[in-house]
């Protein structure tokens, strides 16, 4: 099955990194480790990767980058005193694993 998404690594420099005109035409999803998911075989997405000097990654490579970042956040969470994990707030939970899609 042909892939529907592609990944790249690019540093978000703030204003102008993703513009309104791009976001309204391309479905972006940013993940930890400066990993960005955009549509595959899409001219607008390819132009955006070029604009931000993104380094294209395979799904496995992108997943590995995200895993390192998520593990670091989870480790920091686990090290918190129980009182600071605030179990009474259902939103304040241990950061979850992120599984990227093909």
């Amino acid at each position, binding site marked *: 099955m042909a892939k529907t998404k592609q990944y790249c690594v690019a540093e978000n420099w703030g*204003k102008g990194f993703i513009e309104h005109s791009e*976001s309204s035409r391309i479905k972006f999803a*940013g993940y930890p480790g400066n990993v960005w998911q955009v549509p595959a075989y899409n001219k607008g997405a390819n132009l955006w990767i070029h604009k931000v000097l993104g380094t294209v990654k395979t799904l496995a490579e992108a997943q590995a980058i995200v895993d390192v970042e998520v593990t670091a956040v989870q480790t920091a969470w686990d090290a918190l005193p129980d009182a*600071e994990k*605030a179990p009474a*707030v259902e939103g304040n939970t241990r950061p979850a694993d992120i599984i990227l899609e093909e």
Partner: protein
Amino acid sequence: MAKYKDIHGFKIQNVSSDPPTSVAGDMWYNSTSGDLKVNLGTPVGAWSTGGAMNTGRYALGSAGTQTAALAFGGLPGSGQTETETYNGSSWTEVNDLNTARGYLGGAGTQTAALAIGGGVPGQAIVESWNGSNWTEVNDLNTARFGLAASGTQTSSLAYGGAPNQNVTETWNGTNWTEVNNLNTGRNTLGGAGDSNTSAIAFGGAPGNPATELWNGSNWTEVNNMNNGRKDLGSAGIKTAALAFGGTPPDSGKTELWNGTNWAETTSLNVSGNEAQRGCGVQTSALCFGGQGGGGTATEEWNITGGVSTIDAS
């Protein structure tokens, strides 16, 4: 310079009121308001990236507008005191909160705001921001965290909170007064409004889609969100609100409230994130912070298109 008539073969229409319907490209002069207007096509809302926060965090307090925002407190750890202002392109650190805490409520503007409750366990502390410093003012009657707040520095509303509270309090600039409860108790909900007599509450743990409207006396249940969730960001007012981010899932979903119904629209660009916060209005909002993405990301929401007034000055 070519004249409009030279290009299009006719003059711009001079009308006393805006036409009830128009199509993309239509242009007219409204002689009553003195505005030159153009239809720029179907309105399109989307998020674009903004300048990163200096201190990454989540479950923080927020106030202000897209180009004049205030971020304060938040997690991780036992709570943050950092306060930052946003000018439309970058964040600047300013004076800290007196009491570190996350999951607090926020109301007001960049120069006149309130930091309400928060902390674990929940606190009743309220601090007032004058554009330079935070000063402690009168406490909430009910200590809590994970609450929502909206309104101004002198007329605000605090509602909900952990654990699944329905308590509502109004602030008149001096004191908090307990008023009628939310119909559905919840924490980490979203809220928006411009005073202590007009607000909207939506979402909340564990993934509640319920929406309620506040008329100054009572909460009334109205149509649900399309995607129930907790720990979401919010902006706008009772009749025109914006809900974004939150979990589950951490997909950055965004919904528009038109006073009657929620409609799903373009998602945030940063995914895998939750506990973002925001400010602004439905057509021009700001989302910042969050858990899962480093906590510094900022996104700007704008709706372009529709009928726009041309600045001919």
